[in-house]
């Protein structure tokens, strides 16, 4: 034995030269010959050794297929060890030698009838692994027998074999009725057989998404739960993963499943634990939060998750990635376990970084002191990457927990005192964010920051510092000197710094116009004439034009109040998070990407909740790592140079109802949800406007200074720029805005019921005013006069804003149009349906009552467009129970046209993403009484059925809103 082991070593050395095939055919011929002789030896031991040698050669990649017949000859033996070796060889070479593989079939079939169950199982297992189409027809009969074998070991092997066969020839499996046999095995008495049957069925079901193969009903679930207690840990994983796909009918069933799965949480195998966590996290959604059991379950989830952190670093890392998701979804589970996420000095760096991320997510007022103390320690460690992230973490804490901001700032100042270069730079980057979050509070530290100006050599830190100087130019005496010093090496700076410097100097000029005129001219000319960068040129021109045409407007735009940054900027998008929660314990949870982004083909891709784009993977990263992707913006938190463009854009597009469609992404663009206007915009601008920038840059008269721009310039400049903006922000289709949808007039009060008065009418919202437009038709014989109108109390407090203006009496057979402006400050009472309105109309004859329903879009305000960040946070914040889903059938608009239409009714598209032909529109609307409704509209190209999910703190309105969608979209 020693001998062939040595030979193996020798062969391995040859292995590296294997590309030289000549080498083998010449020298190794002798070896093959020798092996052939040994294989045909009479002695069993010798045969065995020979087969081993063959397999050893096979492992190192040598071609020993020439020995196929000789090896197959050894197959008929009662020595199990030898048989196994031969089978091993067969599995490897049958594919390349299909004709010869047939030679082995007889022995297989015979072995499937052997008295020894080990041999029967071995034969059926190996046959399944021989991926040769010809062999399948011989496989059917033995497989059928083995599926009903008396020995569970054979049955469980046969169950898996069905999946193998299905992969080679799906039709055959169906024709032969193996699927039914497999389904029967779910009720097998042996748990191992059940587990394998479940695994095989799950796999087959994935390639037939519509089949009802794994028909999960309470009975089968019960069987699975019983088998769960008895089978091996690996079987438990198959069963738990299968359970996770089941949707319980009600919360009681949910609870009973949870109760039976909970014991798995204390299993020693972390894969079992995580599969159990997945099932529980999913079914918990169905449990009412006030249930005692809900609280119990929450408590039970923490210890197993903590336990996972004592495993090997690899498992820890995978566990942390999962915990990161769980913490975002249900922070309450681990809120008391902060300490376990403190890093150990010997953790690998990737574990440290994950822990840090989770620490920030768990940070709250209660534990912030502890967290800060830890972070400060980390910031003095040796590992540069880790230190950087720790410093950023301090900044994120400041933004997240307001009470801690002051302490965070002083900690950061302490760190700046260490003068460690990268610490200082990171600290400045985060302090900038803190300024954004808490304006006019910590500006006293600016002086300290300015001392370190010289040592900054990283673009991000330089850009941050320049932003600070520009933003607070009026408080820094020598702001112009500081900025001027940067200007010297303008062309050597990175784009990020150049853009920031441009903006900062313009800000400075607007604040101190007298002393800085020269400086601003200098920077504008550097940016527009001497730069090749289209972003920079465009921004330069925009400023130039603004400053030259209307300095007051320029001030309003450039120095506009900035929106505050929100604390949870790095959250995973809610829908993606929900999908990822369904994939806990899988690769998706490690990549933080939906499986569709990395698994090819149909198998394995099940959109558990929602499809999502590969691009959204970017937004998943925390801003620190993510900022690499959004390299144009200083941080993903505040794309500050995007502000200005954002502002300009709003300027162009307001009022949104009249000017046009919302700034959703152009078709085909995929954007992370976080940075639509920030980094995304910059790159968009860059791509689209390159040629036009080139034209303008060539204009010779440019240097004249902004005071008197060349006469020809504004016109030529204006046109392409606005064209560019249109290109970017107009949606491809449609282009023109649709007006508000006005339902056709309906008869509200038939003449029969009102002594000859017929009222038909509709509701209209015009530039923010709701009107009830009515046609009053006198079908009686006498003149009608003295009209008055009153509303009953209603859900949204609609009331006439003035008297009904019908000045002339209506003579018989005459009809008259009347418009009644409505206000929404009347008395409120909930109506059924919600949009029901009861009206009383009086005339000289009598009082008549009728009720009508108004489209709820009448109540959608023009300012119902939510900030992206707010949208994300709100979506997350609104509990899941409040979400309702609807289908809109037979709608043939594409998503852009739909979005256009909806915008007419003040339903604003905030973002759009496209994944695999499915468009997702994120929309918001605001009702007159301040209720926000958030919507996610999914449009699949070629599929006339839309899916819409609505989230609202007052879920009662969902039904109405949905109806409104339907009517708007279909008209």
């Amino acid at each position, binding site marked *: *034995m*020693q001998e062939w*082991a040595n030979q193996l*070593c020798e062969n*391995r050395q040859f292995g590296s030269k294997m590309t030289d095939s000549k080498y083998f055919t010449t020298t190794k011929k002798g070896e093959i010959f020798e092996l052939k002789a040994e294989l045909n030896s009479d002695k069993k031991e010798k045969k065995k050794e020979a087969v081993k040698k063959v397999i*050893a050669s096979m*492992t*190192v990649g040598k071609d020993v297929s020439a020995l196929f017949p000789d090896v197959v000859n050894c197959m008929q033996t009662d020595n*199990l*060890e030898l048989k*196994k070796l031969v089978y*091993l060889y067969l599995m490897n070479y049958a*594919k390349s030698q299909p004709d010869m593989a047939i030679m082995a079939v007889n022995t297989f079939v015979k072995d499937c009838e052997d008295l020894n169950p080990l041999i029967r199982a071995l034969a059926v*297992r190996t046959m*399944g692994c021989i991926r040769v189409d010809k062999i399948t027809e011989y496989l059917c009969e033995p497989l059928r027998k083995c599926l009903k074998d008396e020995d569970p070991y054979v049955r469980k092997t046969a169950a898996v*074999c069905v999946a193998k066969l299905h992969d080679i020839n799906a039709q055959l499996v169906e024709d032969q009725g193996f699927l039914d046999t497999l389904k029967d095995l779910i009720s097998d008495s042996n748990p*191992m057989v059940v587990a*394998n049957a479940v*695994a095989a069925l799950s796999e087959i079901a994935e390639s037939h998404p519509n089949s009802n193969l794994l028909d999960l009903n309470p009975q089968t679930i019960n069987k699975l739960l019983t088998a769960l207690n008895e089978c*091996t*840990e*690996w079987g438990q*994983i198959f069963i738990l*993963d299968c359970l996770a796909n089941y949707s319980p009918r009600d919360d009681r069933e949910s609870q009973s499943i949870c109760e039976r799965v909970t014991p798995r949480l204390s*299993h*020693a*195998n*972390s*894969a079992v634990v*995580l599969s159990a966590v997945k099932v529980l996290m999913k079914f918990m959604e169905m449990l009412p939060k006030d249930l005692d059991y809900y609280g119990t379950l929450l408590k039970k989830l923490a*210890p197993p998750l*903590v*336990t996972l952190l*004592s495993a*090997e670093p*690899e498992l820890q*890392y*995978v566990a942390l990635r999962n915990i990161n998701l769980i913490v975002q979804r249900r922070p309450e589970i681990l809120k008391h376990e902060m*300490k*376990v996420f403190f890093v*150990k*000095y010997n*953790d690998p*760096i*990737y574990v440290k970084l994950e822990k840090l991320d989770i620490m920030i997510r768990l940070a709250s007022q209660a534990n912030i002191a502890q967290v800060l*103390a830890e972070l400060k*320690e980390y910031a*003095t460690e*040796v590992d540069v990457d880790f230190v950087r992230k720790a410093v950023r973490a301090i900044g994120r804490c400041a933004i997240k927990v307001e009470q801690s901001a002051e302490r965070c700032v002083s900690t950061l100042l302490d760190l700046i005192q*260490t003068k460690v270069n990268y610490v200082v730079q990171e600290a400045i980057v985060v302090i900038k964010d803190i300024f954004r979050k808490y304006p006019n509070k910590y500006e006293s530290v600016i002086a300290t920051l300015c001392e370190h100006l010289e040592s900054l050599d990283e673009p991000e830190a330089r850009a941050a510092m320049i932003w600070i100087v520009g933003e607070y130019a009026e408080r820094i005496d020598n702001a112009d000197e500081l900025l001027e010093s940067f200007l010297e090496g303008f062309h050597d700076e990175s784009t990020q710094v150049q853009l920031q410097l441009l903006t900062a100097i313009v800000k400075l000029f607007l604040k101190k116009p007298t002393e800085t005129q020269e400086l601003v001219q200098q920077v504008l000319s550097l940016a527009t004439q001497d730069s090749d960068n289209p972003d920079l040129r465009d921004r330069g021109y925009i400023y130039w034009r603004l400053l030259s045409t209307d300095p007051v407007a320029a001030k309003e735009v450039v120095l506009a109040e900035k929106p505050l940054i929100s604390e949870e900027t790095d959250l995973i998008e809610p829908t993606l998070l929900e999908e990822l929660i369904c994939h806990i*314990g*899988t690769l998706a949870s*490690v*990549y933080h990407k939906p499986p569709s982004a*990395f*698994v*090819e083909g149909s*198998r*394995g*891709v099940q959109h558990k909740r929602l499809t999502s784009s590969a691009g959204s993977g970017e937004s998943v990263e925390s801003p620190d790592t993510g900022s690499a992707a959004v390299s144009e913006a200083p941080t993903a938190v505040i794309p500050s140079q995007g502000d200005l463009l954002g502002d300009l854009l709003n300027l162009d597009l307001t009022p949104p109802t009249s000017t046009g469609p919302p700034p959703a992404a152009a078709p085909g663009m995929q954007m992370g949800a976080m940075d639509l206007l920030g980094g995304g915009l910059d790159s968009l601008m860059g791509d689209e406007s390159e040629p036009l920038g080139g034209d303008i840059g060539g204009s010779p008269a440019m240097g004249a200074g902004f005071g008197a721009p060349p006469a020809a310039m504004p016109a030529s400049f204006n046109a392409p720029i606005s064209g560019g903006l249109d290109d970017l922000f107009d949606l491809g289709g449609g282009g023109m805005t649709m007006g508000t949808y006005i339902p056709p007039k309906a008869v509200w009060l038939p003449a029969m019921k009102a002594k000859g008065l017929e009222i038909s009418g509709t509701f209209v919202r015009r530039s923010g005013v709701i009107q009830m437009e009515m046609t009053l038709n006198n079908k009686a014989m006498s003149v009608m006069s003295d009209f008055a109108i009153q509303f009953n109390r209603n859900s949204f407090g609609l009331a006439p804003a003035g008297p009904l203006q019908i000045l002339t009496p209506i003579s018989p057979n005459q009809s008259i149009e009347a418009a009644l402006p409505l206000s929404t400050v009347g008395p409120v009472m909930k109506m059924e349906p919600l949009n029901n309105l009861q009206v009383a109309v009086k005339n000289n004859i009598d009082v008549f009552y009728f009720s009508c329903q108004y489209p709820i879009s009448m109540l959608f305000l023009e300012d119902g467009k939510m900030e992206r960040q707010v949208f994300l946070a709100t979506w997350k914040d609104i509990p899941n129970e409040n979400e309702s889903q609807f289908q809109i059938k037979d709608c043939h608009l594409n998503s852009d046209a739909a979005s256009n239409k909806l915008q007419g009714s003040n339903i604003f598209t905030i973002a759009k993403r496209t994944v695999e032909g499915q468009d997702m529109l994120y929309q918001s609307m605001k009702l007159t009484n301040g209720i926000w409704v958030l919507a996610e509209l999914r449009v699949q190209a070629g599929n006339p059925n839309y899916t819409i999910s609505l989230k609202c703190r007052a879920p009662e309105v969902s039904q109405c809103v949905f109806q409104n969608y339907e009517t708007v979209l279909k008209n």
Partner: protein
Amino acid sequence: MISQLFILSSKGDNLIYKDFRGEAGSDVINVFYEKVMALPGDQPPVVMNHGDLHFVHVRQGGLYWVATTTVDSSPFSIIEFLNRLASLVKDYCGALTEKAVQMNFALIYELLDEVVDYGYVQSMSSDVLKNFIQTEAVSPRPFSLFQLSNVGLFGAETQQSKVAPSSAASRPIQSSREQGGKSEIFVDVIERMSVVIGSNGVLMKADVEGEIKVKCYMPNCSEMRIGLNEEFSIGKSQLRGYGAAVRVDEVSFHQAVKLDEFDSSRILRLSPSQGEQTVMQYQLSDVLPSAPPFRLFPTIERDSGGKLLMYLKLRCDLPPKSAAINLCASIPVPKGSVSMSLELSSPDQSAELKLQSRSIEWTIPRFPGGTQLSALFKVEVPGLSPSSLMEVGPMVLNFELPKLTVSGLQVRFLRLSPVQPGPAQRWVRYVTHSDSYILRI
């Protein structure tokens, strides 16, 4: 589910390759090795992808254990599987080395065939597997109990016959039945502690992770009973007995452990499989039953000559009969440190300034309980500024505490049935390691 599995040597040579599902070619082995080699230090190496093929790997015994998968399968199962496979191979081949794997490839292929079918893990319990496995293990070198040359984990200080050497438990499980090898059983209680002590001496974090491992070479042992401290309690509320209870927060058991006697008398009952298995794992957080083993009293200042002066007193609070061994303390020093002079309180200690890692390594071979050691380091740092003092510390300790568990967990008794003849077959060993012991300055 697993698509392929391969074991590579540290140099990237292919030792074992098995394709379970025919989804990808064997050329991915090279792809994997290139990827692993090209990995920058801060990238998590756990999961890597190549097209739609995903690699999951662990390193054990200097070998790469790699599984590939094409679908969105569970990395937990795969990592767990790879770790188990490594220990299974170790059980069957006696050791986890390139040579052992190479020599036993036929056995490993046979194991793989039984353990995984079409990518689905079937069973990894050596009890079940012993019914199927035919191939005999080949040992790289004959096993000898008396080979005491590599003294490591256990029994480092006394090499008397009462203590089994650490290598005693590495041998193939199957050979015992034929070669008439001694039938023995080892019960190891291993704890790892991670502690953070703040600069003010306050215990900021203390966690203990422990496990009881049974390594069994006793083919005819049908049942064993392990008795733990009767005062052993689980969870924060539950208390048993009087006073000095041994308390842990979380316990998990191997699924073969029968717990019917556990609640009443803290006895674990199991039929041990051949080979190694972790019978019980437990954790203890935030509270230690006794004082943390080491305290540091540092004085850090800048002397008149601009040198960094570090006077460190380290106290060992273990019981006087115990001692820590192989203690190594590492203290980061400010950047720009050039050289160091030192005074140590006893001759067996040593210390060294490591410029590469910017730290002082202070080594203490043996540190008995109840004693105190001190060291004075004078570090030459050109341009030492007051803020550089912040860069000193924290001190990190590495040590082991033989024959001691910090949780206080003890094995009261170990009974085997049927009763085994002959002496000295049952070994119970305790050790505590420092996982991460940090003393902030």
